[in-house]
């Protein structure tokens, strides 16, 4: 068994990396990190069978492998395509990819209500990130946006079908994490919707995880609904001895009040552990938890734009690949009087107030 596993050499945007056979292009790109990793709206590494649906992770394969160097004629979904030895992939260096991705963002947004100002997901929404990075400012869609009949999913989970991008992640969660799936995709085409067949509440112990996996604001926490904006909250890692789940969570504080509890997410917005409904919805007191310290905030959160002490900055790969500095992202200090850089939000004792900045 001493035989060493042969590693595949793959070049993504002129950066070469060695990965194990069976790795997808997307995961190889994530190993490189930074801007090289294609965006993924439907792929979720912890859910088997997810991916391939949203088409935002399309990449160009300029060389199939060393053995068969022909390029692939179509753009491929990087989340569902395995790397081959000697494969050459173009992501942000390919005009075709950027154009297709621009198109996909447009398609995702034409029927999206764009109700970010009243959406609880705003600030940690992957669709916001995606449209900011790859979309256009205007829209060419001049028709009424799609609406749905409302479905009630019970006391914990709020469904906003108009915001849904049909990534199927919540369906996979119910299939793979809970013991019985009661919701699914009904109907087809542009009138497909997430619903239970006959109005039913989702009441499985682990069904709350659909909130964490939802890339947009389609499934949100009813106990946190309209309570606060996520960027006013301070995430803190905590754990408790939970008989059902790992009990490792992130508490979202404002002042000394816990507004919501979520799973701990990595830099790609994916949770480390599934948590149970009790931890998520019932335990909202500091005394329920053992505090570990401030969470490292991922690039998928608008909080990282604030001057928060523990921000995990993405690695800058752009200058290396494109030979130009990255697109200047919005600097909140340029347009806002609050949030002065010299004042650390996370060190304020209570909720942030304009008085704190205008002393």
């Amino acid at each position, binding site marked *: 068994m001493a035989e060493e596993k042969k590693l595949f050499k793959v070049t993504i945007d002129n950066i070469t990396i060695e990965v194990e056979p069976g790795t997808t292009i997307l995961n190889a790109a994530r190993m490189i990190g930074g801007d090289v990793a294609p965006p993924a709206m439907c792929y979720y590494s912890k859910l088997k069978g997810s991916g391939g*649906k949203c088409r935002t992770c399309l990449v160009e394969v300029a060389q199939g492998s060393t053995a068969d160097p022909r390029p692939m004629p179509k753009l491929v979904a990087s989340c569902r395509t395995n790397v081959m030895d000697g494969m050459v992939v173009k992501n942000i260096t390919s005009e075709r990819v950027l154009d297709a991705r621009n*198109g*996909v963002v447009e*398609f995702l947004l034409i029927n999206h209500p764009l109700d970010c100002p009243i959406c609880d997901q705003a600030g940690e929404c992957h669709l916001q990130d995606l449209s900011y990075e790859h979309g256009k400012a205007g829209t060419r869609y001049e*028709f009424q946006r799609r609406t749905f009949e409302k479905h009630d999913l019970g006391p914990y989970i709020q469904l906003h079908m108009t915001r849904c991008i*049909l990534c199927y992640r919540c369906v996979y969660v119910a299939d793979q994490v809970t013991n019985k799936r009661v919701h699914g995709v009904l109907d*087809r085409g*542009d009138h497909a919707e997430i619903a239970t067949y006959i109005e039913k509440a989702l009441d499985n112990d682990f069904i709350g995880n659909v909130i964490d996996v939802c890339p947009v604001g389609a499934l949100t926490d009813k106990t946190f609904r309209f309570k606060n904006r996520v960027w006013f909250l301070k995430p803190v890692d905590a754990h408790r001895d939970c008989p059902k789940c790992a009990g490792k969570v992130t508490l979202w504080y404002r002042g000394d009040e816990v507004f919501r509890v979520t799973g701990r997410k990595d830099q790609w917005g994916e949770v480390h552990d599934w948590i149970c409904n009790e931890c998520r919805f019932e335990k909202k007191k500091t005394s329920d938890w053992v505090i570990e310290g401030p969470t490292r905030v991922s690039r998928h959160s608008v909080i990282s734009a604030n001057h928060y002490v523990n921000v995990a900055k993405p690695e800058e790969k752009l200058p290396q690949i494109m030979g130009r500095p990255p697109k200047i992202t919005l600097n909140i200090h340029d347009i806002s009087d609050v949030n002065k850089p010299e004042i650390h939000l996370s060190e304020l004792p209570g909720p942030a107030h304009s008085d704190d900045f205008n002393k």
Partner: protein
Amino acid sequence: MGRKLLLEKAHIEGIRYYDTYRREGGYAAVEKALKMTPDEVTDQVKKSGLRGRGGAGFPTGMKWSFLAKPEGVPRYLVCNADESEPGTFKDRYLMEHIPHLLIEGLIVSSYALGSNRTYIYIRGEYAWIVDILEQAVAEAKKNGWLGNNIKGSGFNLEIYVHRGAGAYICGEETALIESLEGKRGNPRIKPPFPAVKGLWDCPTVVNNVETLAAVVPIINMGGEEYAKIGVGKSTGTKLISACGNINKPGVYEIDMTISVEEFIYSDEYCGGIANGKRLKACIPGGSSVPILPANLLLKTAKGETRMMNYESLADGGFQTGSMMGSGGFIVLDEDQCVVRHTLTLARFYRHESCGQCSPCREGTGWMEKILKNIEYGKGKMSDIDLLWDIQRRIEGNTICPLGDAAAWPVAAAIRHFRDEFEWHVTNREECLKRNYGLANYAEPIKATA
């Protein structure tokens, strides 16, 4: 007079029933095939040059040879009878009139592929054909052509007829497999291809009805003999379902050596354009292939006569050509409006999109809305360019070919008939009152280029 292989005996009274079919020489191919090894049967199909008749035109023998054959894992053959393409009704005719030909083809093909359970996935709307097929299966079983140890060969086979629930997308092979497994008919992401992981994760071949029926004459006459019919890589005969503004709509068997002009105008086939009108355009291969205007239909861009075969119809790529597709030959006369026609197709694809991947789910609906605006006199000039942009971004970026199928008709309509779209935009009042065709053909288009 073209040669007929599939429909040669379709007109014989009672051919639907086993006794007549057997008396007319039916099931000879099974007898012959069971004396050969499975690989020899596959070899004959390879030699015949038979190409998939469902639309893509992929060589059948090659598809069969891709089938993975791991030990101890069952293999499946699935017959795709989910014929839902607008304008295509050839399989329906075949199954309705001569069902035993399909059963015979299925037995031979199953033997070649080593499938002991073979499924016919039939379109839900073909409710009465299900009865015909089930009766044919029962008759075949009663006479020992199905079941265990068929005619002493040691080969076992059961055929099951499975009804779809009425979705165009289930004609896509992986969606069909999902549907057959009892799931929602969403196409799977390829790879893995069905030849490796198909029905219940076992190696599977999905073939069209006509393809499997064509295996019967191939075995009867030999692959090399079959390959002599037709031209080049378009071997054998093809069923064409002709419809639209022609004198004699119906299903015709052609041997791919006749020209498009002959097919439309000769009395043997379509019998010319109805009511003495002029030919305006034609979709030569079912609703999803690009539409061609009369001049490009009858002659290729190089000035050669366009023939009814795979290569010639595709000559010129999508710029000036089209595709053989599934053989749904839709003819439009001078009075028809291409914008309205394109809208009808766009509405169909919007309704039939499975909604799994974003470009197709959102793009098809968007295209339909824009086309509706243009057709009903609310369009803008910029809408035409927008349509072009939308179809460009759908094509090739989706999981399954339905996205392409939705994009191509729109692209071709704009490419060849942009003036009609512009007329709709500039004559808002008039386009509500009459068709473009009726309004604008004071200048006669040339019936023959």
